[in-house]
């Protein structure tokens, strides 16, 4: 059993905007690219060109259909990776100390040198956010790009997780959720950011911004109706309106 730090100095994490995520998987593949080449063992792919291709990913996008009580069904794209929980059950379950939560920033990591690939952590994680790499035999998970966010070899603006840097729709935000004044904390406050499965008691650091209400235009018809008041009922009347309207244009009145 591995201990969690009593308190972390910062709570680094992601804020993911479900209102804006178009489900393009840019974050998924950028993550795959960066983390194949960087932290730890490469993210391998089995049966890469065969019947059951199955590789290791640290971030996946799931799509769910939602049927509201009234109105059309909706499709929600839901990117999911490690949520860097404050009470991370994947850490406390680890028999070797390989899984740990960093005291300075709260990032949950796997020390691959100490990982025996037993898979207990993946079993303990209620979010399915860990994947055992089949080639390396070690547990892989989102590192929040710990090798990018402090990396002095990168320009300062690039010191964000790879998924955040690449997201075309700007649906992914990175920052300190332990600091109420941070941009991400403000976003969470403004938009009603939510925990994923709070009932699990894991206290996830990552937050999701809910989709805004959809298909509401129809309810505004009373407000909008005056905009469509016909200028005239008959086509002839339209021409009369036209002449008057043209005279009202700048420089128009004869």
């Amino acid at each position, binding site marked *: 059993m591995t*201990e969690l*730090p009593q308190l972390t100095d910062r709570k680094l994490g992601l804020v993911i905007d479900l*209102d*804006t*995520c*178009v*489900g*393009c*998987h*840019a974050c*998924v*593949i950028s993550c*795959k*690219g960066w983390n*194949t*080449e*960087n932290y730890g*063992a*490469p993210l391998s792919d089995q049966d*890469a*060109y*065969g*019947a059951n291709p199955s*590789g290791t*990913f640290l971030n996946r996008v799931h799509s769910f*259909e939602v049927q509201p009580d009234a109105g*059309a*069904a*909706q499709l929600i794209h839901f990117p999911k990776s490690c949520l860097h929980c404050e009470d991370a059950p994947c850490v406390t379950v680890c028999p070797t100390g390989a899984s*740990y939560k*960093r005291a300075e920033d709260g990032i949950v*990591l796997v020390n691959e040198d100490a990982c025996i690939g037993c898979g207990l952590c993946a079993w303990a994680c209620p979010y399915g956010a860990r994947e055992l790499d089949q080639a390396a035999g070690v547990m892989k998970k989102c590192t929040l790009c*710990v090798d990018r966010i402090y990396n*002095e*070899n990168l320009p300062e*603006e690039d010191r964000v997780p790879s998924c955040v*840097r*690449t997201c*075309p*729709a*700007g*649906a992914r935000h990175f920052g300190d959720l332990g600091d109420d004044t941070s941009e991400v904390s403000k976003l969470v406050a403004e938009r009603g950011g939510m925990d994923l499965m709070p009932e699990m008691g894991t206290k996830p650091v990552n937050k999701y911004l809910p*989709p805004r209400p*959809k*298909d509401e*235009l*129809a309810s*505004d*018809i009373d407000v909008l*109706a005056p905009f*469509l008041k*016909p*200028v005239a009922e008959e*086509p002839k009347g*339209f*021409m009369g309106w036209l*002449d008057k309207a*043209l005279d009202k*244009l700048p420089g*128009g009145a004869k």
Partner: protein
Amino acid sequence: MTFQQPELDTSPKVSDEIRKTTCYMCACRCGINVHMKTDENGEKQVAYIEGNRDHPVNKGVLCAKGSAGIMQVNAPSRLRAPLKRVGPRGSGEFEEISWDEALDIAVGWLKPIRETNPEKLAFFTGRDQSQSFTGFWAQNFGTPNFAAHGGFCSVNMAAGGIYTMGGAFWEFGQPDWDHTKLFMLFGVAEDHDSNPIKMGIGKIKARGARVIGVNPIRSGYNAVADDWVGITPGTDGLFILALVHVLMKAGKIDLDYLSRYTNAPVLVDASDGPNKGLFLRDADGKPLVKDRNTGELTAFDKPGVRPDLSATHEVDGVTHRPVFHMMADRYLADEYAPEAVADRCGISAKRIRTIAAEIARVAFDEAFELDQEWTDFRGEKHAKMIGRPVSFHSMRGVSAHANGFQTCRALHVLQILLGTVEVPGGFRFKPPYPKPPEAHPKPHGKVTCNGPLDGPHLGFVHGPEDLMLKDDGSPIRIDKAFTWENPMSSHGLMHMVISNAHAGNPYKIDTLFMYMANMSWNSSMNTRGVIDMLTDKDESGEYKIPKIIYSDAYSSEMVAYADLILPDTTYLERHDCISLLDRPICEADAAADAIRWPVIEPDRDVRGFQSTLVHLANRLGMPGFVNEDGSAKYQDYADYIVNHERKPGVGPLAGFRGTDGSKAGRGEVNPDQLDRYIENGGFFVSHIPDEASYYKPWNMAYQNWAVEMGLCDAPTPYLFQLYSEPLRKFQLAAEGHGERQPPEHLRARIKETLDPMPIWYDTDQTGNEGFTVNALTQRPMAMYHSWGTQNAWLRQLHGRNPLYVPTKLMREKGLSDGDWAKVSSPHGSITVPVMEMAALNENTVWTWNAIGKRKGAWALEHDAPEATKGFLLNHLIHELLPPKGDGLRWANSDPVTGQAAWFDLKVKIEKAAAPADLAESQPELPPIKSPVGTGPKDLTWKVGK
């Protein structure tokens, strides 16, 4: 026990070098940083790809395809060397040959064609980003038979836009993302274009602006739209004209804009005869308007004129009326009232009115002003720029119908009526657009043996006199582009080339030469039929299409059907230019172009296709490519990019011209130009002055800037064409006027469909009795416009393509997820796995296109799900409509442009089997032998240590 954290290096070296080039995982052309690391052999290898923050297109972001590029340059499906067919066509049996032998074979076929009858070569390029070059090659070869893939993609959108307002969406222009407050998408699946639309939607959503998605399928952009309109496919035009009806009726149109910048005030000849419906013009040919100040008949562009939208002009008892009168007559009529169209569109009248009202509210109540002076083409100075923050974007969903051209026109007319084009908050052109149809070339087709064609192949016709017809009235072109069947086919008709060549109609060809066009698979209608045409033999045992040359970088399905393969490189191994002469990467605020350069050298015996064309041209001694003494002007494509001049001082690349690289647009050849591009990140940008940033078609500051940049040779301000005179000229011919007359069987159709003002008509439903369900395809964002669906990473995202079936149809047909369903059209049937989808028009089914693969292609194993469960809807779509009993076969294309009407497909669906009762989708085609084998089982790709 206190846990000791391990030591961690949080500043590892990222790479040894960053090479900046242009992505080609789709057609979006983003800038990329290719991180290189040195491998154990001391070779620099691609380690990681990210977006280039400085690049005008993507500003640092990158989509899934772009990041997966590393799996494309190591793909096992890459072709390795030139191939000569040794087995029967379609068998996939080849032997590898040298480039010398390959070029000798090609020249041996092409030289006699050039000398005796250049039209015997049909040269069609598919996914081509170098059309100004491939077209130049074809022109100098002398064949009239050249086009790229626009005819089966989105020519309706391009031509509809250019004929109406001098540009269309995507490469032609973009919403004013920084100011728009209402963004409305029509028929935009998850594509066209890629990152800029996502960035734009992100931007406007962050501002709280509203997005309305009009699409039968609520996925992708439509999934995040605030309001989704699940329209019945093919009825967008009707919906748009209902919006026009309501907005006009309420006076929610921009009269000032219409009178100044459009042909709404232009007077139309009402006298019977050959000029009926054409514009009244002065002695200089300028369209005439009534000046509201003086009541005089005046040229539209006279300084001080106030064109009158209302006044008519009477001559000899005939009343000539302005275009705007005719529009009021047509669109105020009850046939366009929301109540009249609601059922056909599948949108309630109330909803149509609500959307119209919201458009009106935002366009007029949220209008704003920018403090920016500008001067229009009449010399009038304006103190401000008026913003109308409603913008539209549209693509293939409305385009790929047989009523698509008029629908695209209708959409442009809607935005013009609102006054939202080229104003703050609306739609903005990107250089070299705006560009009216008159500024484009007309099509050319005069063939001279051993000489060049008389001009560019593709262009814009302005009347029957511009059609590509021989003296006997038969088509000049193998694809029958620019004929009475589809007069305004500005992009050609690639989807008709193989069937016409096979039928010998209008004539037989000798060699079919194609580039990156998967015609024996997902790029053809009637896939099985096309395969048969490619392998069909005549009585003497010769193939009906005698010789086929094909170039591709990968082992696509088409490879097996060619006789000679000229293997292309991947996009990281080549030179390219994304040119202002072609399909540029400009932004609304800037002209921009870009290059690709070999960030890695090929490890195979392959060459960039464009360099291969240079080599062929040199061996053939083609004008434009060789000097008078027969020596080569260019050694390869890079040499051409730098040294070719289309006119003095204007070449493929606009940046870093002049001997010292200091000139932009126009300037002498700079031998170091490519190095300067590489130093600059692979691209070049020239910003448009602030006073030129809006109102571009009429803004003299923009017009003068465009001349300086070499985009045009003189200022060419013009009016938006709500009423299109070229269309009317074809109608006049169909009414019996003029020397060039359409064949009798086409008269009625031309009169109906080439209407000078947008109309909506239902597409031809002959033969569709009993087939009542609309069937569509789209490509997933991670594979849109991609030649990389075999990509090891991407296929894990989208390796399967069930047929998505709406809930109601699932219940009606007793279907459950995973069941096999038989899907039939008048043309054929397929049996495919189904999956329920609720967020879908209730009478529409759809699937991801181009996931399905032929066994043996793309270096996938035969049991890959793409080859077993994957399928194509193409088997259900014929290039011709079902017989009508008139002895003719009509093309499944738009009657104006010839655009392939993919989305007119109607099917019926029935349960075929439970999931376990069938192993594979049907039809099951036999495997083709792979020239490259299959890939490695497992991948653990890491370049650095």
